[in-house]
């Protein structure tokens, strides 16, 4: 019984991977909101992105993260913003960040240290977040490659959260520490997370401690459409559609199965 369920599922998601179906999609309002906030950055603004999701959740958080990175790096070229990348939760996050920088983002022609900087993993999680908000220079000593930060021109004037124009973070665990430490400063605070974590962030979102959220591939695909840079998100959406309808079907089939078995005198 379960095997059949699994096999049909594998076939369903394999079809779009072999040849895309091109089913229509829509862009959610929260994705547009996040896009606007990032797009509204002005020349010279510093955006900080905290990549904290674990390697195992790449499938869900990764596509949107790639889309946002691409957008940020595009803005460096178009508007001359500056980008700080950092990890606070576990070493996984910095591995993800390096992977995106290496494989997905076009950094050609950009100056490391002036246009963008990767600080790597600064252990400490919530303590680090608090340090970033209050005393940036004392918590950050070197970047990911061991260069002291006074050698990185763009970080020289970053003292606290007031010198940063926008903060975003991605997490696959609890979103609580981020609004706790970084919220309430009147800066945009954007979260990219698992879809299951989105309801958790909604109370913060209502209070505007978090100003925008994106989660999972549908938002990633919408984001890719907005930035005009197609990627993993759009590709997976067909598979999403098929598997959701399959889920609805299974609930119905499961119930029919259950009731016929019960009528037939089987155990409930």
């Amino acid at each position: 019984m379960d095997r059949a369920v699994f096999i049909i599922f594998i076939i369903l998601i394999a079809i779009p991977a072999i040849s895309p179906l091109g089913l229509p999609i829509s862009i959610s309002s929260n994705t547009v909101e996040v896009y606007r906030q990032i797009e509204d950055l002005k020349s010279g603004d510093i955006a900080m992105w905290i990549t904290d999701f674990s390697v195992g959740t790449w499938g869900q958080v990764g596509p949107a993260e790639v889309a946002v990175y691409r957008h940020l790096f595009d803005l460096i070229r178009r508007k001359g913003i500056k980008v700080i990348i950092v990890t606070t939760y576990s070493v996984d996050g910095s591995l993800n960040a390096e992977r995106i920088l290496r494989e997905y983002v076009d950094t050609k022609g950009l100056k490391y240290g002036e246009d963008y900087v990767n600080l790597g993993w600064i252990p400490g999680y919530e303590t680090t977040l608090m340090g970033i908000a209050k005393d940036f220079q004392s918590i950050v000593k070197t970047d990911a490659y061991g260069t002291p930060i006074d050698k990185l021109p763009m970080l020289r004037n970053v003292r606290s959260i007031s010198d940063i124009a926008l903060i975003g973070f991605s997490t696959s665990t609890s979103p609580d520490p981020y609004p706790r430490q970084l919220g309430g400063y009147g800066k945009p605070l954007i979260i990219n997370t698992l879809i299951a974590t989105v309801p958790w962030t909604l109370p913060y979102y209502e209070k505007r401690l978090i100003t925008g959220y994106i989660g999972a591939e549908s938002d990633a695909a919408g984001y890719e459409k907005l930035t005009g840079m197609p990627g993993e998100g759009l590709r997976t959406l067909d598979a999403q559609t098929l598997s959701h309808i399959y889920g609805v079907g299974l609930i119905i089939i499961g119930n029919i199965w259950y009731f016929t078995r019960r009528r037939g005198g089987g155990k409930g």
Partner: protein
Amino acid sequence: MIDALVTSIVILMAWSFLYRENIFYRIGEALLVGLALAISVKVGLDVLFNRIYIPIVVKQQWLSPTLIAVALGLMMYTRFSKSLWWVSRWPIALLSGAGLGVAMKGAVMAQIVRQLDIGSLFTKDIFTGINNLILLVTAITSLAYFLYTFEHKGALAPVAKLGIYSMMICFGTTLGLFLMSNIGFAISLIPNVVRPPGLYASIVAIILIIVDNLIKKE
């Protein structure tokens, strides 16, 4: 080429568990446990190196409070002694206490006070008011469901019942949202096994499953 093949074989080894518990899955399981443990030990050694060895030995800060942490850490190993095992409880008690303290820190403000805040019930836009009312009712009833020392009868019975219904809406929503996040992994892995060279590995896997089925029938 080799890399992609290795990746797809590894994926198929793990997914073979969907068919049944088998030797390939077992190998994958053992590898994963071994590798993950090695990674955590390496990360742990790095932490000890950065936080203890460098400040104390390299920078010569002999009187750093970190030494107390080291002492507490070493106390954990009294676990292996027959007469002093009880000392190992101390560091664990301190550690659990700190964890509970951290959890409590978030509990009161974020989980209680902030959640009490609610919008106006009568607004110009009538729907917002109604929505706020529904919000209030669902919140109160689901909280009332968790009253332990009052029996669910009399006036409380319908309230608790309504509480269950509102919680079911909450859980249904979560369950519905769940699928999207959960199938993501499988979807992101599937290209590895349906495109060459992974495709060849999948064909081998399918043949193995068919053979296994035939053997079992005989």
